[in-house]
């Protein structure tokens, strides 16, 4: 599932280029599939939660999973419908290993007129079967008049 690099570049301009916190964390969309999206955050010293272990702070994982789950809704609906996170549950399965990058895969598996249902896992590159965290989220869809968090054209 290799997405056209030019297409990814366009999506990244809307996703990371236009959203300050996504950009600040260094988030990059690395691949897009059928109703699913993969986003990476590179390991960075200022994102560490415990200086004794060098493990990334939980907040980094929360932001990555929230953003990736939201992006998967656009991939599923194939249009830039404005969304807002209703709730997000995250299970921390094991600590991220410093100094490795983390990748989140999110899948929007069901969408109604009002609500999108998403699940996600975060793992280290190349190890999708050894998740660091898993998540389940719901997103409310605004049909009109809302202001999208995902600036730009949806896949």
């Amino acid at each position, binding site marked *: 599932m290799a997405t056209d690099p030019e297409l990814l570049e366009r999506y990244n301009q809307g996703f990371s280029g236009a959203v300050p916190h996504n950009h600040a964390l260094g988030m990059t969309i690395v691949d897009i599939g059928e109703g699913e999206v993969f986003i990476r955050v590179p390991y960075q010293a200022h994102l560490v939660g415990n200086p004794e272990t060098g493990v990334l702070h939980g907040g980094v994982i929360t932001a990555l999973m929230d953003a990736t789950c939201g992006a998967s809704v656009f991939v599923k609906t194939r249009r830039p419908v404005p969304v807002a996170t209703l709730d997000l549950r995250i299970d921390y399965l094991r600590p991220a290993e410093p100094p490795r990058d983390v990748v989140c895969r999110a899948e929007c598996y069901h969408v109604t007129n009002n609500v999108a249902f998403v699940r996600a896992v975060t793992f280290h590159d190349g190890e999708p079967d050894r998740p660091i965290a898993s998540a389940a989220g719901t997103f409310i869809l605004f049909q009109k008049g809302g202001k*999208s968090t995902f600036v730009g054209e949806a896949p």
Partner: protein
Amino acid sequence: MSTLLDQVRRARETGDYASFTQAIPYARWLGISAAQVDGEILGKLAFADHIIGNPTIPALHGGTVGALLESTAIFQLLWDAETVLIPKTINLTISYLRSARPIDTWAKARITKQGRRVAAVHVDAWQDSREIIVATATVNLLIKPAE
């Protein structure tokens, strides 16, 4: 270099709550700190441009509000409990009630249940009015109380 727990102990003695949050690189970078206000421990997320998630509304990124909620649960456990390790989050469930505006955000945690290994903590976050909650979280954490 002293450990985080040493810094927590020192902060308890001196009342200098800002110092140990400064020892957490991510908290420093994001703008999260702990403060004692009217005798209670509050978490604070200072507004800065890099925590914006939606520039159109504009609104804070949900991940940054989640980070404040989780951090505030940990601050509360560090203060209330003589723990011999930094509490480890097992899971958290965040409800986003309103979009968080581009101003400072505060949070207060309440320990619902503290057992021998697990603590359940409820956290509320608000902005200029404590009555208007922007997000809540339920957090389960692994703890290790002193023997």
